[in-house]
């Protein structure tokens, strides 16, 4: 019997979703990009031809539903653009427009996405087009100056600086905690976690079928390969030197993972 698992699309840009033009001959100053998508936490690319004819790009992470995506922090997002396009994700209801206050807050309150790269680097947040870190840095600096000016006779500049830093980290912590609460609400809908969970369940079934026999794998997509290798780490792996040993082969065929039993 051959097991088969159909792979769900992952968080990588969807190559089948070619770039889609979302606006033509549009002024970019102080505007952001809006669209609706059914896919959350997918990395996509916004590309545009600026007034000088140069191709500019910015990567983003999608949020399921209709949301705005900050573009004002990119130095090439200004003037008039010939075309603006979105690649790597299927979108609709797209527009390039000025955000109102509730849309600004929606952009600011976007939670840190859960991606495989999140343990390497964070995406961060923006507020009214400015980096959130620069905003808190400014607030911290002003607090430090205010404390030092008012309390100069009783505290040192260092203490004032620490106080200012603590205050700005309180703001960071409030923002982060809100993001974590939102992330927790959305985690179970996350497609790549659903895929990972599916792979984990499938791998347990593979382990049951493999039993005490050897196994090896070939041509698996990298995420499936490492997930299955982790799940089967306690089952006898057949390295290339054991290629003549009867073994189950886990392979990628026709868009899914198959378990090929040993040849008798």
């Amino acid at each position, binding site marked *: 019997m051959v097991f088969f698992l159909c792979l769900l699309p992952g968080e990588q840009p969807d190559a089948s979703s070619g770039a889609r033009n979302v606006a033509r001959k549009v002024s970019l100053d102080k505007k952001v990009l809006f669209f609706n998508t059914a896919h959350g936490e997918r990395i996509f690319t916004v590309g545009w031809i600026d007034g000088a004819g140069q191709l500019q790009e910015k990567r983003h992470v999608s949020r399921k539903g209709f949301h705005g995506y900050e573009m004002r922090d990119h130095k090439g997002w200004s003037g008039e653009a010939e075309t603006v396009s979105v690649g790597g994700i299927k979108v609709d209801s797209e527009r390039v427009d000025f955000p109102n206050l509730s849309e600004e807050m929606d952009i600011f309150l976007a939670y840190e996405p859960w991606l495989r790269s999140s343990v390497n680097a964070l995406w961060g947040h923006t507020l009214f087009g400015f980096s959130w870190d620069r905003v808190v840095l400014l607030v911290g600096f002003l607090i430090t100056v205010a404390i030092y000016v008012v309390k100069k006779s009783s505290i040192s500049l260092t203490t004032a600086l620490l106080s200012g830093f603590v205050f700005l980290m309180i703001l960071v912590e409030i923002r982060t905690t809100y993001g974590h609460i939102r992330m927790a609400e959305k985690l179970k809908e996350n497609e790549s976690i659903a895929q990972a969970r599916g792979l984990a369940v499938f791998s347990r079934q593979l382990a049951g079928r493999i039993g005490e026999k050897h196994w090896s794998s070939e041509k698996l997509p990298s995420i499936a390969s490492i997930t299955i290798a982790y799940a089967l780490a*306690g089952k006898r792996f057949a390295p290339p030197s054991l290629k003549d040993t009867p073994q189950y082969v886990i392979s990628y065929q026709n868009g899914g993972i198959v378990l090929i039993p040993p040849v008798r």
Partner: protein
Amino acid sequence: MMTAFLATLAHILLNSVEGWAISRHFYSDCGIVARVCVSILTGIYFETLLIFLLLFLGLPVLSLPLALLVSTAILVSFSLWKKKRGQFFSRPDFSPFKPHWYEIIVGAVLLGKVIFSLWVLDASPVYFDDALTHWSARGRAIFGGVNWSFDPNSPLFMGFTGHKHYPLMIPLWRAATAAFTGEWNGVFARVDGILFFVLVILTVWAAVKHFSQSRALAAVSAFLLLSLPFHIWHSFSGFADIGVEVFAVASMAALLRKEWFIAGFLAAGTAWAKNDGIVLFIPPLFLSCLIIQRTLPAAMKNGIRFLAGVCTLLPWFIFKLFLMPGIAPGEEGFSWHGDIFFKLIEIVIDGPTHTVFWIFVPVILCLTFKNMFKDAIGRAMLAFSFLSFWVVVLVFGMTDAYRFLVNEMTIHRTMLQYYGVSVMICLYAVFLSQKKEKERHVG
């Protein structure tokens, strides 16, 4: 899940008893929190070294719980036998601890982070790449017994997946935890991150309280570490970087308490958790150990004690020397990338991952440089910071690691390893500055 947690708690308790039995011979006077943190880390360090030796000698994995219980019993018996009258049960100070309002808030934040991390462990499978390959898959392979060999001629030498160069503390600890229940669980694959996260906070809190005698400053240090957005991700990621961080910060705290041997083996713990420690932490911590001394003979004597602690990792170093040459995976070649400083500013300082933390740290050190330089501990901390900075520049600017700076795959995790020590250094700088200010007013 509940069984897995109970097994983990039991394992941590065993580690703390083992660690207490070893480290109590080298303690100075330190509070209960510092003592518990050091005990747990000492227990993890020596237990995993012992497991490494036992597995190398061919002991099966499922006999490990018995072996560990026996070794713990021997250690505790030895400690009881060596007790000095009235000193064995040198009870720590259990006077009632009445928390201030700010400590309640910080405690609540810590509890919230721990609950969130535990919830993530329950809500998600083992997910991130390095956890799946280097740290948990190898741990699972060790536990399973069939995909692991210490024979360099075997195709399964040091496992069938992950970097063979990577040290074994984390995989061995996870395998040992699984051995207590007889089966693997996704909790074992990642829960040590939460333990290390809590230990970093508590170690820094205890160290700052010890040197400043200020609970407010200690609470500030704990809060700063809790609020760094990148930190919490590594409490549930399953990676080893937070393991490096906790051993580094515990080593620095031990230096401040003048526990030279303990500081040495905790420094070695950074290298036993991940290769980074060999280059990023052992040299700067050793330099700090030398500079903190007041006389040259003291520097020699205590430097040797520190190195004696580092040498407890010799079994691993000897194993690597003879069976696995090289320090790190990847190509080994050197070429200088002239834009390293701009890249570090753009990616580390100006990027969102660490918020403004890496602006705050150099600013504090610059403002307090004069006070720090006049103080022995301050000088040691400045030396640590200076050498660490240049080590990071050289590693990421001169080696193949440059691409991991540009693609941001490794640099931020390396900077995370410095979080705990950096907060400790900054709070020491502030404390020193406040002390000078008070002396000036009194004068």
